[in-house]
């Protein structure tokens, strides 16, 4: 049971029941993510100003892990530079797959609650779906391009 309570910590259940930044941002860059294994679908919206994630949100259908992971992600990356987002994602990916992480000064903060996922290899995709989608959204030039774009 302990592995199960590690996976579904109360913080995760809270984020699942009441996700943060669960909304559409009109005119933002966006991308859709899909996990064909379980039918999870997520759309991530992101506003980039210069090099910074000015605003980020998501909507979608999914399991508790994928919803909580998306919610926690939006909280973690808002206001960060793109390369910092990328560095956090890389470290997060290592934590949820159970790979050793270097002491590189990157603090995952609240994202650490998802570390229990490493005991459940089939659920890694649930935890990373929103992240992959965020990356795609950042890289897509779609939506209304921010005023800082192209500078």
């Amino acid at each position: 049971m302990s592995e199960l309570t590690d996976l579904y910590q109360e913080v995760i259940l809270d984020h699942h029941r009441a996700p943060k930044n669960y909304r559409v941002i009109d005119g933002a860059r966006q991308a859709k993510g899909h996990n064909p294994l379980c039918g999870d679908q997520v759309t991530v919206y992101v506003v980039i100003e210069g090099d910074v994630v000015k605003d980020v949100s998501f909507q979608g259908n999914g399991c508790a892990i994928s919803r909580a992971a998306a919610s926690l992600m939006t909280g973690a990356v808002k206001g960060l530079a793109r390369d910092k987002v990328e560095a956090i994602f890389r470290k997060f990916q290592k934590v949820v797959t159970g790979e050793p992480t270097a002491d590189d000064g990157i603090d995952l903060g609240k994202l650490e609650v998802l570390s229990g996922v490493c005991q459940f290899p089939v659920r890694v995709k649930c935890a990373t779906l929103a992240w992959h989608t965020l990356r795609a959204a950042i890289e897509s030039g779609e939506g209304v391009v921010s005023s800082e774009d192209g500078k």
Partner: protein
Amino acid sequence: MTTAATVANWQGQPAGAPAPVDWARIRADFPLIGRPIKGKPIVYLDSAATSQKPRSVIETLRTYYEEYNANVHRGAYNIAAKATHEYEAAREKVRRFINAASVKEVVFTKGTTEGLNLVAYAWGRKFVKADDEVVLSELEHHSNLVPWQILCQATGAKLKYIPIHEDGSLDVSRLDEIITRRTRLVSVTAQSNVLGTVTPVRQIVARAREVGAVSVIDGAQSVPHQPVDVQAIGCDFLAFSGHKMCGPTASGVLYGRRERLEEMDPFLYGGEMIREVRYDGATWNDIPHKFEAGTPGIAQAIGLGAGIDYLSAIGMDRVQEHEGTLTKRALAHAAEMKGLTLYGPRDVSVRGGVITFNFADIHPHDLATILDEQDRVCVRAGHHCAMPLTMKLGVAATARASFYVYNTEDEIDILFDSLRRAKEFMSRGAR
């Protein structure tokens, strides 16, 4: 009448009825059933995906590899002759099991998917033309859907679907308007892998014959669970998988009516399927070998034969009865369970041993993890390779429990008890 039969009669059984099945002994024949995994015995409720294997099948595979592993239909030496003999003996076991008219009508494949693709390519590409119609049902698994979509795209034929009622049963009220003189081929499942719906295949095949269409049955979920007689059904093709009926993975069968197989071109070209090859051309071997290019799954076919022996010794009517008992119990639990949405027909006479549901707003993927961790209950979560049907149900995913010969009524109780505790677990901290 013998004394034994008289005694049986006296005990209230019909004359000549076989002795009751000892289901506890059956259960003990499966090494993985009840085996502790990380400290807890598994409760395997995913036989619609693949069945567990009895010891006799595992032993048959071991014996083949240890005692007569050789290629079939060519070696002149002893063990090659033995391998060929056992491979062809397995074909005869399949023939008898589905009551085909001849072993020539039994093609070994690696599963239902290959069988259906074989028909779609080798029969479909040759005989289906633009303006023809191909009819499926809305229940189909991707393997009985995508090959026909591709065939229709390639030939210009039109794809049509027999609809389902809200309860997941097939709506055959307008069958005559859907299957018409324009219909060239009809391919339907005999039992839905998602809803358990048993379809009226005889009625559908009869209508197909009336209009001169070829009929294909996806038997992946029916052949493992009930007596099947291809001559009584009257279908042209029946595809099924061995691994869902106690056989090894990558074992399977395509039954094809002799005239159909004769008029088809081969699917794969190479060794085994030829009669004569010259530098300027080749001629084909007789059926069924024409469709078994290359070294076939020898161990798989022989192992499937052992699986068929195992099921036949129980009796397929008994298998069906046992699953009916389990399904009834599951349906009774489901009816009493608050917050549980059950999909598919409620009537056990038109529903196989498959229970598909959603529960308490818990995503099926979470449920599957929690049931496994709590009680090692193995259920499937997702769209079950039937995305159009899942969408029609109006959900992104469902959870599915499916039953077989080794399952018990106790295990059904464990499933529902585990569901109750899953709900408590996921409500932690909720206001």
